[in-house]
């Protein structure tokens, strides 16, 4: 292996049986393990030493560095999710930047980054000039990143987003936790089609738990716990990004509760007490969620500038103890059409005349202003309480790198029902 001599000196061969089996043969394509700090003192150095397909396995410690995974098919994994910490110290922009296709981040914590905990993005988005706004430019000329996995990652007290996929497709964000972000805990932006799954995550104590802007289906958000934020979920269109309008997301079987958190950063537009909002989104399906104890409103359908909510369906959700269960809050400039409710367990809607069955929706209802709820002052990201100990990836020390081709894989929502209130509660500090 002359070509690997420099690396052989760096990399201790500690390939587990499963990894060796997966690779099949020795040589350039065989996955190897780069152990931090044994083989490389920093994660950056380990990424530099790693080859596509390799596993960078990180031992417990606080790593004060910004990591970029700029090679394809690298898995960055902590050996203990709660004890392997990448700390931005409020000076570095990001914890982990993923620009290599098919790469994975697993089982570690990213905190105190000025911008994002983990950001997955294509390398090609620079240089566009939207002289006429993005609506005039669709589709953008750049190439999305394809293939990513964020799994069992804890992101907290980062300045903007916890886990952020931008211009990235064919990926999964799962079993992760996000708290204390001044914008969204988990954010999927600018993809059409996205081919993204967001499942089994907890987002709490953020300005917004989960947010998607111009992120279109296939996009499945299911089995998550979005509780104790200021706004639980938003699915929006926005003209500052490509791919207007947002379309065809499924938001199913989530707990969306108690999004009235005072000890969280303020939402940029003052939102508070809102479970789920669709602003200018099209043909989204909000189904079989437990929407509970959101002080202002459970679900809000709204306009975003000139972009109206169109053809969204709110179906089979269980609403409990919200200020108002469903509010149709569009403006005259973008009144919306074709939205409907069906089979929900709900107690109140605004306007009161809003049809509660799809058969009943004749014509577009007139929107009403969202009921005013005074938002208490927010607190800084860095002052939000840290997360509880969180569940580890099974067999983190020995499991082979995950397969990231073909993500996110098939999704069957038919078995996803309305969750119990304690869904993922052992990974959460929010009760109501």
């Amino acid at each position: 292996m002359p070509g690997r001599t420099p690396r052989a000196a760096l990399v201790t061969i500690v390939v587990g049986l499963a990894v060796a089996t997966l690779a099949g043969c020795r040589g350039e394509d065989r996955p190897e393990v780069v152990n931090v700090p044994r083989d490389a003192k920093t994660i950056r150095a380990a990424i530099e030493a790693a080859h596509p397909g390799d596993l960078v396995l990180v031992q417990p410690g606080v790593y004060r560095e910004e990591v970029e995974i700029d090679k394809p098919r690298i898995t960055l994994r902590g050996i203990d999710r709660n004890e392997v910490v990448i700390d931005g110290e409020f000076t570095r922009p990001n914890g982990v930047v993923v620009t290599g296709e098919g790469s994975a981040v697993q089982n570690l914590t990213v905190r105190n980054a000025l911008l994002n905990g983990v950001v997955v993005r294509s390398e090609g988005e620079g240089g566009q000039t939207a002289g006429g706004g993005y609506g005039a430019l669709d589709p953008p000329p750049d190439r999305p990143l394809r293939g990513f996995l964020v799994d069992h990652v804890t992101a907290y007290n980062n300045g903007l987003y916890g886990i952020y996929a931008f211009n990235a497709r064919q990926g999964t964000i799962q079993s992760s936790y996000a708290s204390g972000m001044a914008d969204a805990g988990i954010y999927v932006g600018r993809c059409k089609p996205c081919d993204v799954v967001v499942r089994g995550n907890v987002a709490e104590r953020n300005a917004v738990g989960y947010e998607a802007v111009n992120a279109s289906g296939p996009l499945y958000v299911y089995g998550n716990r979005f509780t104790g934020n200021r706004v639980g979920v938003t699915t929006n269109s926005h003209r500052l990004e490509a791919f207007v309008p947002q379309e065809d997301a499924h938001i199913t079987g989530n707990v969306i509760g108690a999004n009235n958190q005072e000890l969280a950063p303020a939402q940029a537009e003052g939102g508070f007490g809102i479970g789920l909002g669709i602003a200018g989104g099209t043909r989204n399906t909000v189904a079989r969620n437990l929407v509970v104890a959101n002080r202002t409103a459970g679900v809000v359908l709204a306009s975003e500038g000139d972009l109206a909510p169109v053809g969204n369906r709110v179906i089979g959700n269980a609403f409990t103890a919200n200020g108002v269960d469903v509010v149709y809050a569009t403006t005259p400039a973008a009144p919306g059409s074709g939205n409907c409710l069906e089979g929900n367990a709900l107690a109140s809607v605004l306007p009161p005349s809003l049809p509660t069955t799809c058969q009943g929706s004749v014509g577009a209802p007139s929107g009403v202003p969202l009921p005013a709820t005074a938002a208490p002052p927010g607190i800084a990201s860095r002052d939000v309480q840290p997360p509880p100990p969180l569940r580890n990836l099974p067999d983190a020390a020995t499991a082979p790198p995950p397969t990231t081709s073909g993500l996110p894989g098939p999704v069957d929502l038919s078995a996803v029902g309305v969750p119990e209130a304690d869904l993922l509660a052992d990974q959460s500090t929010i009760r109501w």
Partner: protein
Amino acid sequence: MSGRRTAVTWLVAGAAAVAGIAIVGAILVRANDGGAPSPSSSGPRPVTAAEADRLAVMRFLLHQGRGVHFRTHVSTAGNVVSVAGLLDFHGPVGYGQVSSAGSSFTLQWTKRSLVAWPAAETISEPPPDLPAGSPTARPLAPAQSAVDTVLALLLELGLDRPDNAQLIRANGARWVRSDTIAGTRVDVLQGPAATADSAASGGPLTYWVDATGRLLRVEAYLGGGGRPTAVDLDAGSFTPFPRAADLPA
């Protein structure tokens, strides 16, 4: 006398009218004065991801530091109005001395209002007590006054959260050149030229940003085709100052 008259005119009536820049929520995304900036192989180029990160954090860093000293000279109606003082981004509130051709005022302002004392006070370190007497109050009027435009802009330079680096980059932010300010190497970066709702005539703002994202200078075209207005910032030794009791938020 003409200088005093100019300053008085501005202070009382906000009448030194210049086609102002609408101060929008995110100053990084500004109106372009018609058409995209033309790319140049030798000059401006799209920002790198790292440069976009620095643009994204600069306002947040200023806010985290709470305050900054500033100094600027605004050309208006044939005169130059100098403004220097302190910005407290946690207010947000500004405290400065305005002078033009021998006359001067002390003022405090928020995003909506200003109060001014028609007597010069030297704002030293630590800041003095507020000037004696009752100040004159009026709404801040950036649409009518270049000075007010700058005052409003100054309070937007700090923000309680970062901007989105991906959107900054995707919306056309550009690296212009390298420069040095007081021995610190900086990059001169132009903000996005995305569309805005207003028909404002100002171009994108230009920022002098060091390697850590610290903003040392910002430059804005206030319209009318004149020279840009530059604001120099110094984050050293900021001390919070007392706030005028009758200054609305």
